[in-house]
Every structure is written in C-alpha cells, then in structure tokens.
C-alpha cells in the first residue's frame, strides 16, 4: 500500500467548555488555553517540543507548514498560536487555531488507525482533567458547525500519477464525492496537483462514529490505490520502454541538474516515486518521501542557513537532491 499511500493523518477539533471560540476570545483567554493544555499534558512520557508562533522566524514557520506539523491557518493567529510537537513528529497539538485545539496524529504509509490512536491518546489525557464543549445531540462543539460531532478529519496522502496522466481524476473525484469524501491536490493551486499528490479526507463529522469515518476513508483509499495500480500495469504493458524512459529521464535530471525550480522538481519527483514504487529506479520510497519535504522552499532555505534569492535557491535545491540520490 505504501507504494501509493504516502501518509495518514487524523485530527480532532476540540474546544474548552468555558472559553469563547476564536471570534470572541481575548488574548488572556488564548493564553489560558495554552497554559492549561501544557499543564494537563506535562506528565506525557515522551519528549515534546513547545513552539509558540510569536517571534518565530517566518521561514521557520513555513518549514513547519511544509512538514505538515502546523496548519497554514495557525500562522494567521501567530500572536497567540502555539504548537506542541512530539519529537518523533507523530503527534502535534495546535493551540488557538480555528478551534482551541487541533490534535493531530500522523503515520507514514496507510495506517489511519495508528494515527487515530495517537490523537485519541492526547484527547484522553486532556479529558481526564479538563472539560471540552460537548452537546448530547451535536457532540464536540466547534467554532464552525461543519466540524461538530466527532470533530474528526481522517486523511490520507495518495500518489496517483497514472490516474492523473490517463485523465481518470474526474471519475476518482466522483467516487469520493458519492461517499461524502473529498479529494484535493496537496501542493500547487487550482486544478493542477503538483507531484500528482492528493489528499483524500472525510467531509461529514457528525452522526458517524470515529471508526466508521476512518474505515470509509481507508476503504476508499484502498480502492483508489487499486485503480492506480491497474493503470500502472496498463501503461507498462502498452509500451514498457516508453514507460521506463519517462522514469529514467526524470531520474537523470534530478541527479544531474544544477538548478532545479520547485515546480519542475515536483513533476520529476512524481516519476522518481513511481520508479521507486515499481523497483525500477535505484532509490527507496523512504528517500523519495524524505526528499519531498526536504526540497520544499522553506526547507531548502533553512538548510542553506543564509537567505538565498530564487536562482541560488534552485541551485542549492539541486545540490540537496543530488546528495540525497547519488
């Protein structure tokens, strides 16, 4: 499965019963939200890092977004927003986002259950000591009613290069929509999904149990992965040389180019991962996936250590890529 499902994520939206939501909360109440969360989570066994957004360097924040450890929305409230991130990056607790808390569990590959267990462990630890806003009819209450109920969003990142190339994404989207799920490009704006990476997630949060939601997303992801697999085989059967040629050309560029803009990287990265998944290129899936994050703009900037202009950034990115692959 991991040759198609890159990662799995589960997030829970929670709000403290006695504090107003984002639109009405004061600065002091936001600080109280952070204080009590940290206090309640202090006895957790594994090491965590606490990151208040205020005063953090802009590039550092962007790098956290690129690594999916914080949400772009959290950056909009940087005066009071903070994140608590477990050092293995499998759990992050965002504070003062759209809701008081967004608890995220993360795993590599297809393992929504594991991601959910991570998120539930934090939810349980907090609820032992603190009260969340809850209504017997509408479940956990959230700032926007579209998240009320379980407050749970389960999502998987899918790599679907052949379904995209064969113009099957419209059909795939329909499958998702019928089941109350959505499919979106992760990188890039608008219709074009850079890297052929998509995020499949549930929309409805009320009236279904956590398990039902997770099972629906997992089952649909498996179905899409199977479709992708069929199209991969079809493409190879049709013209194996053309298929391999496409993969090796990207590999050649990534291992030789001296300047690699992000958009171009994303296109070749997709072929690199496809080649790795099929065992055709001398690179592991793990290296591919690590490179995806490492080559994003804020990560390259961070690795360089000094502020780079766009041209130098592209040059430095190509160096990072070569070092990772050769």
């Amino acid at each position, binding site marked *: 499965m991991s040759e198609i499902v890159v990662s799995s994520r589960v997030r829970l939206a929670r709000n403290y019963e006695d504090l107003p939501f984002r*639109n*009405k909360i004061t600065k002091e109440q936001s600080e109280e939200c952070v204080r009590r969360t940290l206090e309640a989570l202090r006895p957790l066994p594994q090491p965590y890092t606490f990151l208040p957004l205020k005063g953090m360097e802009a590039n550092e924040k962007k790098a956290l977004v690129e690594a999916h450890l914080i949400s772009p929305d959290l950056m909009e409230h940087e005066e009071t927003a903070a994140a608590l991130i477990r050092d293995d990056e499998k759990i992050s607790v965002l504070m003062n986002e759209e809701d008081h808390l967004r608890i995220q569990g993360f795993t590599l590959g297809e393992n929504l259950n594991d991601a959910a267990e991570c998120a539930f462990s934090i939810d349980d630890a907090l609820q032992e000591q603190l009260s969340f806003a809850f209504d017997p*009819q*509408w479940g956990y209450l959230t*700032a*926007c009613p*579209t998240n*009320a*109920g379980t407050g*749970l969003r389960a999502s998987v990142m899918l790599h679907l290069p052949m379904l995209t190339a064969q113009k099957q994404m419209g059909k795939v989207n329909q499958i998702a929509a019928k089941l109350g799920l959505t499919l979106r490009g992760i990188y890039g704006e608008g219709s074009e999904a850079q890297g052929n990476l998509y995020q499949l997630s549930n929309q409805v949060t009320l009236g279904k149990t956590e398990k039902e939601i997770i099972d629906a997303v997992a089952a649909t992801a498996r179905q899409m992965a199977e479709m992708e697999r069929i199209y991969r085989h079809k493409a190879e059967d049709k013209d194996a040389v053309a298929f391999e040629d496409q993969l090796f050309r990207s590999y050649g560029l990534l291992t030789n180019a001296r300047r690699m803009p992000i958009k171009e990287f994303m296109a070749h990265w997709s072929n690199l991962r496809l080649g790795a998944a099929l065992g055709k290129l001398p690179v592991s899936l793990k290296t591919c996936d690590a490179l995806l994050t490492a080559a994003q703009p804020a990560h390259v900037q961070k690795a360089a250590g000094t502020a780079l202009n766009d041209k130098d950034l592209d040059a430095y990115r190509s160096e990072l890529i070569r070092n990772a692959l050769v």
Partner: protein
Amino acid sequence: MLCEECGKNQAEVLMTTVVNGQSATRHLCRECLKKYQAGDLQALLAAILSTMAGKLQETDEETPDIICPKCGETYAEFQKTGMLGCAECYQAFRKELAPVITRVQGRSQHAGRRPPVSEEEQARQTKMEELRSLMEAAVAEENFEEAARLRDELRAMTPAREAKA
C-alpha cells in the same frame, strides 16, 4: 462583477442553490465554483446561510436578532461568518441551527466518543433513573400527587442544557 465568494476574481458563472425549496443565486469565479463542486462543507454552509438570510429578510424584516447571552454573538454575525462565538451559542441559536446542521452534515445526532462521565455525574444519572421509575409507578397507581412531587424533583436535578435539548 467580482466573485461573491472570494471578492478577488472576476465572476464567470452563476450558481443556483436550492435549500428547502428556496433558491438563491450567486456569481462566482471558476476557482470558487470548484470548491462548491468538490463538496466543500464550509462552502455549502455559506450557501445555506446566505439563502436562509435572504429568506428571512423577504418574509419578516422585523425579525429581531438572537443574541448569545454568554459571548454576545448575534445570529446575524454567524450568518455572515459561519463561525459561532462560544459553546453557549449552540444553545442560544439551537432552533435556527438545527436545520442548518442537519442540512450540512446530513445527520442530526452525534455518534462516537464522549467525554468521560465523572463519579458525581454517574451518581446523578442513577438517582434520576430511580426517580423516573418511581414516578412511573406512582402514575400507574394513580397517585398523581406523589407523581407530581417526583416530577418536580426530577426537573430540579436536570441541568439546564439537557432540559432545553
């Protein structure tokens, strides 16, 4: 004209939504139209709220706005932003929110995880169940005086929130 959703791009399409037999039209750019087509709940919520706000204006312009007693958020504010001010807003706007939530989520009753029940709360619930069965027994025996006394005792034990629900 500019897109009524993002206010940035040029509107190119006219989208009609029908909610409870009431239709509303909005001018949208292609990007925002895509959001609706992808089944974005937040976009759906905005469409429902704007339709309902329009309906409210047509039928009764004098409708007084509802205000949450805890945070001061008005229902009109919610219609504009799609965001509630605090947990108490869900109680204050309960009647208005119920059809909106059912329409957006497709369901109206939570299933799944719940907050842990404290020992105190457990004791309260056990006591209430006892009183309820005593009350039913009293009614069966046509001892209405006792039944009324038990009913009042039960009422006194019911938290305000549950009573409203």
